[in-house]
């Protein structure tokens, strides 16, 4: 065999080994009509999949690599990050070996894996297209890292892992977060969301309980206060964190914990983290005068 063919078959074997290794920790998740989706055995007894593929809360089953079908219960779901967590009997199959998505660079060869109902794992092959920092999904969830590939997310591949050529899992593939691109929810985000879903069944997000709009001060005020603008309070419900902090309609929030506020992004970043119950110091402008207020961040009410 020529050298070219030999290195090609070596690569082919390596890819198949990676699929076999990572595939041992995959289940088919039956939580929607027709085609199942894929689940990753993330910790012993805990399976992660995409929220969008879990269409019912009860009567969920998973198919193990050995073909056996066992019951699963929904521990919780988070639309923001498109993740759902299921509990199954511990010791049912090997646990996935996790990688560090921070080591992936554009051009690295990767695989998307799936387990449908018909035996062996399935694979799609491609490359990492782009990586980057933290971002927020259109459903409002904070994703720790941008990880995009040119992989085709075939029917049933949603919820499956992004795997490197050594078989390590770098995250959960979602077809729904930024269609038509294949986006991967990285390991750190899965770990963070999974912990919350197992503890309380949902991801608690921060809440202030006021409607606001960005405003820019007029020239005189900008000179006098040495500030460009802030967020103007437009409405305020009683018994909300904002009302309890003594905020009034017309207040302009100009800083949180000493950091200047220029738009919504900083506020959304703050509320997206684990901040429920935390006290923050707000700098306000009320009636043209600087003032401060302490606000205890509440928990965003959940839709029934």
């Amino acid at each position, binding site marked *: 065999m020529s050298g070219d063919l030999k290195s090609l078959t070596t690569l082919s074997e390596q890819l198949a080994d990676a699929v*076999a290794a990572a595939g041992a920790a995959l289940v088919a998740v039956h939580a929607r009509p027709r085609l199942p989706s894929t689940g990753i055995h993330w910790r012993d007894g805990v399976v992660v999949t995409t929220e969008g593929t879990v269409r019912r809360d009860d009567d969920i089953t998973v198919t193990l690599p050995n073909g056996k079908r066992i019951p699963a219960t929904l521990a919780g779901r988070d639309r923001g990050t498109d993740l759902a967590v299921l509990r199954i009997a511990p010791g049912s199959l090997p646990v996935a070996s996790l990688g560090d998505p921070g080591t992936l660079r554009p051009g690295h060869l990767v695989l998307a894996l799936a387990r449908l109902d018909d035996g062996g794992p399935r*694979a799609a092959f491609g490359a990492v297209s782009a990586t980057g920092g933290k971002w927020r999904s259109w459903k409002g969830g904070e994703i720790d890292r941008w990880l995009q590939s040119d992989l085709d997310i075939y029917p049933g591949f949603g919820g499956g892992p992004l795997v490197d050529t050594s078989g390590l899992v770098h995250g959960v593939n979602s077809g729904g977060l930024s269609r038509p691109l294949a986006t991967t929810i990285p390991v750190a985000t899965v770990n963070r969301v999974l912990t919350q879903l197992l503890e309380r069944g949902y991801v608690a997000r921060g809440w202030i309980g006021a409607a606001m709009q960005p405003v820019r001060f007029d020239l005189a005020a900008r000179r006098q206060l040495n500030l460009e603008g802030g967020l103007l309070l437009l409405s305020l419900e009683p018994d909300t964190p904002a009302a309890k902090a003594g905020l009034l309609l017309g207040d302009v929030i100009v800083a949180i914990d000493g950091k200047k506020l220029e738009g919504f992004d900083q506020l959304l970043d703050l509320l997206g983290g684990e901040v429920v119950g935390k006290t923050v110091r707000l700098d306000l402008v009320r009636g043209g005068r600087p003032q401060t207020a302490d606000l205890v961040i509440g928990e965003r009410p959940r839709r029934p």
Partner: protein
Amino acid sequence: MSVAFLSTAADLLRASVVQIIEGGRGSGGAGFAWGRPDLFVTSAHVVSRKRVTVVTPDRRTVSGAVIRRDTDRDLAIVHAAGAGDELPVARPGDPNTMRPGSLVVAVGHPFGMVDAVSAGVFQAVGPLPRGLGLNGKGSLPWVQADVRLAPGNSGGPLADAEGRVIGVAAMVVSGLALAVPVEDVELLFSGLV
């Protein structure tokens, strides 16, 4: 890791691949020499008439006759006596021994681009997953692969990393490339080679 080139496997394969054109117009589909240098496998949907034109890898145009056609399995055999004795026949592989994630190579003429190579990975061989319909043909065995196919790939070979043919490119369903397993080609050729 050393650099892995697809070109050797692709060149081995391309030496056996022809264009199959009906009525002397268009770029048609693909076919490849099987068993004998004058017999070519293709898809039944590429050849609806008895007489076709075969364009050899060295760009000679010869006439061919459809001698067997199986529409259920979407396979056909074209005999072209003028193709010459030098044309290397494709080597058979075995999709049943392939592991998911193994590399595959397809050669065809997508949108008329002659002898184009596309690469991807093997997914499975067998009936389609439940939920992916195919007018009842989903229960037939198919080689299923993550590889880009387009009109003009039909009838061309899908091969493993060593250039051994595992199936005949047939269609795309839900983005998934489907090829007729090489076993069915051997069945169709029984008595001929």
